[in-house]
């Protein structure tokens, strides 16, 4: 089994607000992230896939295909978007880095053929990142 990681970057804005909470609770729990006008990050995405090395190609996965899948399924939908307003997963779910990692997993996992998705890592900043392995 070999693991291959491909990185990508995207920039997006978001804010955190749960309509079930009062305005005061939202401010207390989410702090500055509660500003309804949103704020942005340069996100770094790391997608790790795993699989056996194909004896003919020497590849775990065709990197060109992986790159295209990531662009089509993830970057086209998220890059330069306001996540709360433009990405359906976040119409009713808070676009935290945790939920972003889960959403990216759910977008990619069914679209990968040869290799199996192992991990999605999303850096919100260089000092904060979340890993999701598809665990329930």
């Amino acid at each position: 089994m070999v693991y291959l990681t491909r990185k990508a970057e995207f920039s997006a804005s978001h804010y955190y607000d749960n309509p079930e909470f009062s305005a005061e609770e939202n401010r207390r729990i989410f702090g500055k992230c509660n500003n309804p006008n949103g704020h942005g990050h340069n996100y770094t995405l790391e997608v790790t896939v795993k699989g056996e090395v194909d004896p003919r190609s020497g590849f775990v996965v065709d990197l060109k295909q992986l790159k295209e899948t990531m662009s089509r399924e993830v970057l086209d939908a998220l890059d330069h978007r306001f996540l709360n307003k433009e990405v359906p997963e976040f119409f009713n779910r808070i676009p935290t880095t945790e939920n972003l990692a889960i959403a990216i997993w759910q977008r990619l996992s069914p679209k990968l053929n040869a290799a199996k998705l192992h991990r999605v890592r999303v850096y919100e900043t260089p000092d904060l990142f979340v890993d999701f392995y598809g665990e329930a």
Partner: protein
Amino acid sequence: MKAYLTRRYMFSASHRLHSDAMSDVENSAIYGKCNNPYGHGHNYTLEVMVSGAVDEKTGMVCNLVDLDEFVRGQILERFDHQNLNTLPEFARAVPTTENLCMLIYDILQRGFRGAHLEKVRFEETMMNSFEYWGENRVIE
């Protein structure tokens, strides 16, 4: 759904690697430049990884403000700009980054209640890093 959140912090401290269990010659042979009696310093990068179910109401594994406050109060304020050898924690243990890793893991494990602690990782320099997952965890 279970996710793993990692936060990075920085602090600067000095230390000297010297073991009273060894002769001066042995100390010098084993620790080399790190045995310099006046000590030397590093900019340490501390990585704390916690895990847990993502809370449906907040979308979070744990509130970062709580983790940041704990680390600032219990770790950064205690270790930043200190000479590690002078701290009670290192009265008997050599302040290697291995021992620092285990000490910080222990502080988080005992005191931080916001999420499950997975791992403590230190970068002593850009070239050296150390991680500790606790005793019961084997890294795949």
